[in-house]
């Protein structure tokens, strides 16, 4: 074996520890899961939409050549062309009884529809007389992640397809006195014809994308900042514990006339203060960065006018949620740090914490709490760092219960981890490590 090979073998043995290999494997699994999550959301958002159709128009459109065109037939053609079995079109195109805005909103709610179109009462006569017929869109706003807003675009595409279909029928049967603009776009939609329903109130001229985009631009940085703070504070505390053990300052500290709870509290409070300072610094920096990034994409929708703004009490809840999550992180770190043998092993110990911070960030950003399934919601809720990530959106939607439940959960979690830390500080494990622990010896068979 050459000297170089000898050195390389030694380095590889040091670098490829079970902890580092496990962390890489977990990252692979995490990113694979993330890919699946994003793929699922995109697929869900771009799926063929289910749309309610309220037709207030009297009869079909009579074209110049005497033939007729109906909204329902055109929709059927579109869905059939999109691959929907003709026998199942009723599952996608839901005929509604109502012909007015209030009735439509109520019927959408009872039928569980998130999108519907209302064909104007004068639609057929307008078209027949050479005037653009109007179709109004209704969307029930649903909180989603980054990809969730594409669904309303899909319905708009259906209307555009209908417009094109009618246009081609008109052109083929045209008589010379019709306006070319009308022939190219005989159906009027978009603009104030779009209504987004929030808390049972229709907001004309606002699309779900506008609302979702505006909320995203205001809340997107929160999960990122929380993740950064958790990882940073966690790394500080665990590394501090690793250094204390490596330099044997911990043994000195533990034989000084101070209570173990004082040592634990001192470390947690100091790290929490550092975390808050870092948090504020990151918040300012990220606000500027995200502001410049999101401003061009901002829809300019005033969330306040839609009842989606936060007041002082809401911001206080968000800050409290952030603080509690930092305390939870520090509790976990103190437990993990107790097992760190030295500075190097302490770095590996930060891995579980990083994962716990990244998982809810991805879930909240890409899927969103409200559109996640029960299993994913359970996982998200169980991770304490999820709560400040979700708090701002939850408060915008008026879901104070979720935020308060999160605070209670975090308080219980933090208390449990701090008690566990004090217990560890009063045990031999802090000095001897896990190798001398009776239970570990029984499990591993080592003495």
């Amino acid at each position, binding site marked *: 074996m050459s000297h170089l090979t000898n050195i390389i073998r030694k380095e590889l043995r040091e670098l490829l520890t079970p902890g580092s290999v496990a962390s890489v494997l977990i990252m692979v699994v995490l990113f694979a899961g993330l890919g699946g999550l994003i793929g699922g959301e995109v697929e869900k958002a771009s799926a063929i939409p289910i749309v309610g159709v309220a037709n207030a128009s009297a009869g079909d459109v009579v074209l110049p050549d005497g033939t007729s065109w109906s909204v329902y037939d055109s929709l059927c053609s579109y869905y059939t062309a999109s691959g929907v079995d003709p026998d199942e079109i009723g599952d996608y195109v839901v005929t509604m009884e109502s012909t007015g805005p209030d009735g439509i909103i109520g019927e959408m709610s009872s039928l569980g529809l998130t999108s519907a179109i209302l064909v104007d009462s004068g639609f057929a006569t307008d078209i027949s007389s050479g005037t653009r017929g109007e179709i109004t869109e209704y969307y029930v706003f649903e909180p989603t992640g980054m990809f969730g807003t594409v669904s309303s675009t899909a319905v708009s595409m259906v209307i555009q397809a209908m417009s094109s279909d009618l246009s081609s029928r008109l052109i083929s049967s045209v008589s010379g006195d019709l306006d070319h603009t009308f022939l190219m776009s005989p159906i009027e939609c978009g603009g104030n014809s779009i209504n987004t329903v929030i808390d049972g109130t229709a907001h004309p001229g606002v699309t779900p994308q506008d609302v979702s985009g505006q909320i995203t631009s205001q809340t997107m940085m929160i999960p990122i900042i929380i993740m950064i703070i958790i990882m940073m504070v966690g790394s500080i505390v665990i590394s501090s514990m690793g250094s204390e053990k490596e330099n044997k300052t911990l043994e000195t500290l533990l034989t000084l006339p101070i209570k173990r709870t004082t040592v634990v509290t001192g470390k947690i409070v100091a790290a929490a203060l550092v975390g808050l300072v870092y948090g504020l610094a990151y918040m300012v920096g990220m606000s500027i960065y995200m502001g410049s990034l999101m401003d061009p994409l901002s829809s300019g929708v005033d969330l306040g006018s839609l009842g989606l703004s936060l007041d002082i009490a809401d911001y206080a809840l968000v800050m409290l949620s952030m603080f509690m999550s930092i305390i939870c992180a520090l509790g976990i770190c103190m437990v993990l740090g107790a097992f760190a043998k030295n500075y190097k092993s302490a770095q590996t110990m930060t891995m579980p914490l990083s994962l716990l911070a990244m998982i809810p960030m991805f879930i909240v950003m890409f899927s969103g709490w409200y559109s996640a399934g029960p299993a994913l919601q359970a996982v998200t809720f169980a991770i304490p760092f999820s709560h400040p990530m979700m708090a701002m959106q939850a408060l915008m939607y008026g879901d104070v219960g979720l935020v308060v439940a999160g605070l209670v959960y975090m308080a219980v979690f933090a208390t449990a981890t701090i008690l566990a830390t004090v217990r560890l500080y009063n045990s031999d494990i802090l000095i001897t490590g896990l190798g001398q622990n009776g239970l570990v*010896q029984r499990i591993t068979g080592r003495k």
Partner: protein
Amino acid sequence: MAQSMQQGPVDALVLEDVRKSYGNREAVHGISLTIREGEIFGLIGHNGAGKTTTLRMISTLLRITSGRISVYGHDVSTEPDRVREIISYLPEDAGAYKDLTGRAYLEFIARFFASGDEFDEMVAKGIALADLGDRIDSKVDTYSKGMMRRLLIARAIMPSPKLAIMDEVTSGLDVINAYEIREIIRGIAADGVTVVMSSHNMFEVDMLCDRVGMIDQGNLILVGTPSELKERFGVGTLEEVFVKAVKGE
């Protein structure tokens, strides 16, 4: 010390059938021992014999599996906080917080023991004991091993403990540093501080300790003054006593 002699020797440290197990492995097998106030007691034994485990149990760092340890009448298991007020423990190869200066480190420790004028006096005493000159204001991570050890000795002695526990206190030090540290230990013992120290250096133990305890495989196999032990084994050095005792000769 003189006052104690007049009133009769006080038991500074008492170990009664002390045992320590890690899982199924017993590292210390029922050690019993009494150390009197002002004594310098040396624990000797080869690596892994149980010296550090014993010192850590006395220092409240490790829990006792069975038996009892009392420091000046205070039980280490039931009154650990009280015990920590009267002991100082100096681990083998101990370090200090590297971002602090020597002075800041002594101040950090002194704040756990005193305030006001008493604090200032304690820090001044620590600085004098460390005897690092201007380097007391240098960062600890710039110190040599000898300077670090002097600082830590000063840290351990500065609060005037009743019992100082020192693990391999001069290990790895040059002749001058080791000599000066031994002189410091002699000085504090003369002032009435009880010292329990472990060492592999038999010459040092012979010169410094009033009594010696020899640990082998977790058992206390010998206790006595250096001269008693040498006489019992008919040899001239503690090193020879150690070898004969371990080999069962």
